[in-house]
């Protein structure tokens, strides 16, 4: 038994998950994790699967492409042995960083550079840029794990400074506030 990551990309349409899972079932593969999203009109799905010993990645790739190619979907398989899981997840505090402001190039690069410099790990990023100057049309939401050794005041300061340079309104809040308000 071996593990692989399967990524599927293409124009969104009905039946994509059904088509992928049908091939996996027929090839005796087991889906361990799956996550999918739709960005504008593009479907993106990532599957972690376990494969039987007698199935090669090339063979699975062929079967998937045969089934999904006609649907206009790209398929990519990576064996999981080449990716190492962290020994144990480091302790961290989870923050949500939200920005609004006029659209321009380099917004994600600018904010994520500061987060990376302070050892923050972006666990989720949602960004919508409709373009234009209306701040409400251009929103970035980062969920970030910040290790305890990070100087949080310095991180706050640098993020606010960078946001000001990019003409963004920025809010930095501990994740628990959203959990408290919206989850029972």
């Amino acid at each position, binding site marked *: 038994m071996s593990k692989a990551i399967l990524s599927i990309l293409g124009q969104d349409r009905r039946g994509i998950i059904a088509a992928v899972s049908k091939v996996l079932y027929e090839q005796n593969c087991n889906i361990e994790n799956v996550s999918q999203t739709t960005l504008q009109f593009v479907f993106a799905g990532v599957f972690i699967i376990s494969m039987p010993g007698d199935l090669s990645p090339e063979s699975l790739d062929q079967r998937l492409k045969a089934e999904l190619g006609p649907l206009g979907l790209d398929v990519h398989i990576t064996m999981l042995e080449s990716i190492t899981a962290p020994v144990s997840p480091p302790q961290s505090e989870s923050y*949500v960083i939200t920005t609004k402001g006029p659209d321009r190039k380099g917004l994600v690069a600018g904010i994520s550079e500061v987060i990376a410099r302070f050892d923050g790990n972006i666990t989720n990023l949602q960004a919508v840029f409709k373009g234009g100057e209306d701040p409400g049309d251009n929103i970035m939401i980062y969920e970030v794990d910040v290790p305890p050794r990070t100087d949080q005041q310095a991180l*706050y300061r640098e993020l606010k400074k960078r946001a000001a340079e990019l003409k963004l309104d920025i809010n930095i809040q*501990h994740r628990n*506030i*959203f959990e408290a*308000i919206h989850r029972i």
Partner: protein
Amino acid sequence: MLTQREILSTLEMLQNEHLDVRTVTLGVNLLDCAGHDIEKLKNRIHTRISHFAGNLVAACNHIGQKYGIPVVNKRIAVSPISAVGAAMSSSQLVDVAQVLDEVAAEVDVDFIGGFTALVEKGIARGDMALIEAIPHALANTDRVCASVNVASTKAGINMDAVLLMGKAIKQAAHLTAKDDGIACAKLCVFANIPQDIPFMAGAYLGIGEADAVINVGVSGPGVVKNAIDRALESDSDLDLGQISDVIKKTAYKVTRVGELIGREVADHLNIRFGVVDLSLAPTPNVGDSVGEIFQSLGLLSIGVPGTTAALALLNDAVKKGGAFASSRVGGLSGAFIPVSEDLNISEAARKGYIGLEKLEALTAVCSVGLDMIALPGDTTEETIAAVIADEMSIGVINNKTTAARLIPVPGKKAGDNAYFGGLLGQSTIIPVNNGDNPNSFVRRGGLIPAPIQSLTN
């Protein structure tokens, strides 16, 4: 994973709907500071409050920044000074008030409450000294707040104390005449006062409380108004039961914010967490008004027929949402209707939509009482006492908290404008029926007996 909607709706509440933690109030028990030596008493009070409150403001600012929620006011509530300073004279208690004011300034809190006496059944020596000290104590200090509980459902109404408070209010107004009688804005007369109110001017630390406790007051009338507006925008046919549900869900969210912040501040200071008090407490800012909620509910203005029913619905829904959100809900928890502090209510008073009689009716269903009401300067102490007595009776008979915070504005008459500034706002002075004539009813004194608890019709 949080949804985009959850995150953006939270930001909307904070940035455009004035959601904030209105106050983190540190309760400090001073009972074991008591003694006969005034200097020792003052030193002990100073040391005790400094010990517990030294890091209060820094902790609140730190936690506020962490969650992106401003803690607007940091306050202290102490044990009733009438008990702590029971052996002192009235002039010595004015000195105690000044120590409270000094230490409040040193630890940088906005207000310190607890210049308080509990006299619903009788007036002890220390209580009398404190009531006599109130006018000068409030006029000589900036941050000290006073409260006197003159009635309860179990004890009835102490009419001797009611008359004394009428006098104290008049004198406090006189001593601060150049500021429109602002000392009265720091003085509340109560029936059934809770022991854990974080809001001023009624905050004090009850006799049954621990050495120190953190109580939190959250507000958010703007959040409730916007939630109602949004709900009606998406379905204009909502009935009042459905609107009540919208308010309950909103109150739940606001209460959760308060409990999160309160518990974390308490942990940070290693002090036990007390209660979260969700009270729709307006400020004189546009969009932070309780009065505007009535317009969202379909009334022309607060004060017109239908207002009492609407307030009953609002107050009840707020309490229910808060009670579901936390098992530590306390204080007043409901809707305040302070006239001068709410731009919309103040405007309703100016236009004549609301007067003293309707405000009194509303207090039967709101969470506090006649609050921040500017009265003509020639209103007699007897009339003020009579207004207080009326208000206390509503609380006593209905087994609820009621309070009166009345300001007879020296030298001004009905229709004039009184200006208090800051969060206290400004208001048109409201006429009082027969306000400058004698009222011998309140001079009879004695105790109006506690009400019967059966045959409640």
